[in-house]
């Protein structure tokens, strides 16, 4: 799992009507941590950049459904 995913454990009552989801996750994408972008960061190749949606490797943080398997050609 991406390092930009955080997990927390909500309280589950023994009397909850549905089976509890014990761990919940949320996304904390890289833009939260960098401040102003520093110079000379590592780049994708132009073709990779067009596919991923960013030139900068540090900002690449793709989201996959937990019900979907990642594909081989993803650069995560």
């Amino acid at each position: 799992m991406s390092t930009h995913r955080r997990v927390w454990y909500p309280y589950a009552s023994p009397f909850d009507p549905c089976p509890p989801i014990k761990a919940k996750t949320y996304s904390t994408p890289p833009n939260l941590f960098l401040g102003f972008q520093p110079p000379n960061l590592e780049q994708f190749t132009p073709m990779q950049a067009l596919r991923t949606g960013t030139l900068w490797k540090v900002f690449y943080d793709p989201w996959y459904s937990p019900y979907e398997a990642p594909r081989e050609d993803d650069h995560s």
Partner: protein
Amino acid sequence: MWLYEKKLQYPVKVSTCNPMLAKFLVEQYGGADGELAAALRYLNQRYTIPDKVIGLLTDIGTEEFAHLEMIATMIYKLTKDATPEQMKQAGLDAHYANHDSALFYHNAAGVPWTASYIAAKGDPIADLYEDIAAEEKARATYQWIINMSDDPDLNDGLRYLREREIIHSQRFREAVEILKDEQGKKRVF
């Protein structure tokens, strides 16, 4: 003025006939945090923002229209060949009754788009913080749609759009830093 390039920013491919996905995708078309709201929000705010960040709002606002076009293409492909019966099964019966398979600016629950979704406070920090929040909300919306979609090709396009939200948020955050640094600072080059 704008120059139009007659192609999508990222290729849109839909591989499964699942009109219900169109019902979810329309949230990004005419929803409060959708691409239309984003484009109009930024392109309107840019008149009263310090000139160092006008260009950023112009660029991102313009790109939002490119995203709107991608979402529209996805919705169109998912619904153009749907029979009335399929529209009913997809939960799009109310949409069909009003619009046939035409696209319309409303959210996933059918609420029409309204200008009160967007704000222009005239305060540069307030406006940029609104823009950052809008990008993060759009990013989250893409996550929830990807979670509900089982179409790998569609998800590929949605992942691209979500990545762009991350980049836009980053650039708005940098714009805030530029405006913070500007006052009372002597810069020697």
